[in-house]
């Protein structure tokens, strides 16, 4: 997983509440066998017409937001199913950070597992950031995870909270797996003790 330390980038304004996982990535794209490649269909129903052509009004179809790395949106982002395809689609599009007043629980957890930082900030703060984002290419937001600050184009710093363990993992670029592998010696010890105490535990060997 790519570490998340300081991100300065274009923020796209998505002034809507309750954007669900079916909007982020519709179920017909779930039969895939990859997690990469979903960016093309991120926000599919909002982004494309029925004939597959782009909706010119949709923010991510416009410059400079095609290169957005931060999303600013409203309440309950990511509600709906537990599909991990939702963060996979955002990441594949290039989004590394989502700022909103609230997130759906499972989606929130899935973001961290995939190197995306979801930041909860009060509605009025999100509204102010939404205005910054609407300024386009001249207005970049900086997200400093080390110091837990969002820095507006005018230099104003907005503090945010994030779970300490989650923060550490993102800073170090460790996914859950990377973190657990730091405990590999403990896992090995456990396996050795177990082999001694439960020799009956079968290994699967197909002949």
């Amino acid at each position: 997983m790519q570490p998340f330390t300081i991100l300065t980038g274009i923020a796209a304004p998505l002034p809507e509440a309750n954007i669900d996982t079916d909007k982020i990535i519709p179920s017909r794209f779930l039969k895939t066998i990859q997690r990469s490649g979903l960016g093309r269909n991120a926000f599919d129903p909002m982004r494309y017409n029925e004939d597959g052509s782009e909706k010119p009004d949709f923010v991510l179809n416009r410059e400079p937001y095609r290169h957005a790395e931060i999303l600013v949106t409203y309440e309950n982002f990511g509600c709906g199913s537990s599909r991990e395809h939702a963060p996979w689609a955002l990441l594949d599009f290039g989004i590394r950070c989502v700022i909103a007043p609230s997130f759906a629980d499972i989606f929130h957890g899935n973001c961290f597992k995939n190197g995306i930082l979801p930041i909860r900030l009060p509605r009025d703060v999100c509204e102010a950031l939404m205005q910054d984002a609407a300024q386009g290419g001249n207005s970049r937001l900086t997200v400093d995870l080390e110091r837990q600050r969002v820095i507006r184009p005018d230099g104003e710093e907005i503090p945010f909270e994030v779970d300490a363990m989650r923060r550490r993992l993102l800073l170090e670029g460790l996914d859950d797996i990377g973190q657990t592998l730091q405990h590999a010696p403990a896992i090995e010890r456990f396996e050795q003790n177990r082999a001694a105490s439960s020799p009956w535990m079968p290994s699967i060997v197909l002949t």
Partner: protein
Amino acid sequence: MPTLFDKIWDAHVVDRFEDGTAILYIDRHLVHEVTSPQAFEGLRLSGRRLRRPDATIAVVDHNVPTSDRSLPIEEPQSRLQIETLERNVEEFGVPYFPLKSRDQGIVHVVGPEQGLSLPGMTIVCGDSHTSTHGALGALAFGIGTSEVEHVMATQTLLQKPAKNMKILVEGTLAPGVSAKDVMLAIIGRIGTAGGTGHVIEFAGSAIRGLDMAGRMTICNMSIEAGARAGLVAPDETTFAYVKGRRFAPQGAAFDQAVAYWRTLVSDEDAVFDTVIELAAEEIAPLVTWGTSPEDVVAITGTVPDPASAADEARRAQMQRMLDYMGLTAGQKLSEVAVDAVFIGSCTNGRIEDMRAAARVLAGRRVAPGVRAMVVPGSGLVKAQAEQEGLDRIFLDAGFEWREAGCSMCLGMNPDKLTPGQRCASTSNRNFEGRQGPGGRTHLLSPAMAAAAAVTGRLTDVRELV
């Protein structure tokens, strides 16, 4: 004072973080074609190895057609998922039961019958019905795709302990009442969110009296009661079931294992966060009438009236369900005609379920116009049933006798309901569209499903035996 859950949990904690999260060791990882491709891809991209191929087993079940196995798989997306799994198990050295092997079947039927799922183990799979394996006294639960990859890479999971719930079913089940009815009664009682945050231990004389297939039916649907996992303490029935299975320990190792397994009971003074009690005698054969597994009613009853709902939201929800199901309030359940009958799934696709259905069907015929199918849970179940002559009973009655797989439990393979079709089904979920878009599902036991096939309507099996 630990509960059975506490004992299995404690035996698998590798390490703990300050916030209570544990690194939990996983003894057995079951893999199928739908939730594994991205996990294998993740390993590949990060250059990680699969830590314990010898603790992992793969099968294909969700996507597979249940027709002639010599034919190619037509649906390209399904074929791709199956071929991808086959490439992945090859590359990572995972033991695999191929589609054409007799060992293939639904992952939750295969694990126990091969002796791959054993008491005291931690067992996971990227599938919510992994709770099934808890019937052996194992801590077994479903996980997401990132967690599948986590187990592949580390043979552990990051978990916080669950709360303990005990469900006691005391007494003797009446004739015609099965494990499926017991579980539907439990879900009807506590609701689909009743077990949220808990692991449920099922206990009491009625549970002790069940065979392993019945216990698996109950633990299978723990997830429909909202629980993370279900458990039944291992006993003589469990040990007899495990003994001699292909991967189970043999000889002295088996005796040593049993000595340990005997310690896997909740202590007398164990404290449960929640205790629920049911009287076995009060349980009748049940069917669902709505689109949630908690919407159950005795077969002798009538479709409930939304006007009787406790609040406006529930009234509206009941009305929506009745509209979807094409039922009217007050209608007798026994007058509801069915178009299809499905016997199978990881809930009721075992040999005992086949026998229970065959007992009702012997010498009888499927009602005209009803499509009835039996889908054994695995190739081994199928072979056993054929050896016992059950296939003849089904075929003579007019049932289709199919190859193993998830089949009509979910609309992911060619076995589907068409819009508006009504099905008496032994599976576990009656959600809208679960068995195919617009399909209407009534959950019930195998014997009740057989009875419905014979009369062409939902039927009290006690009238036929």
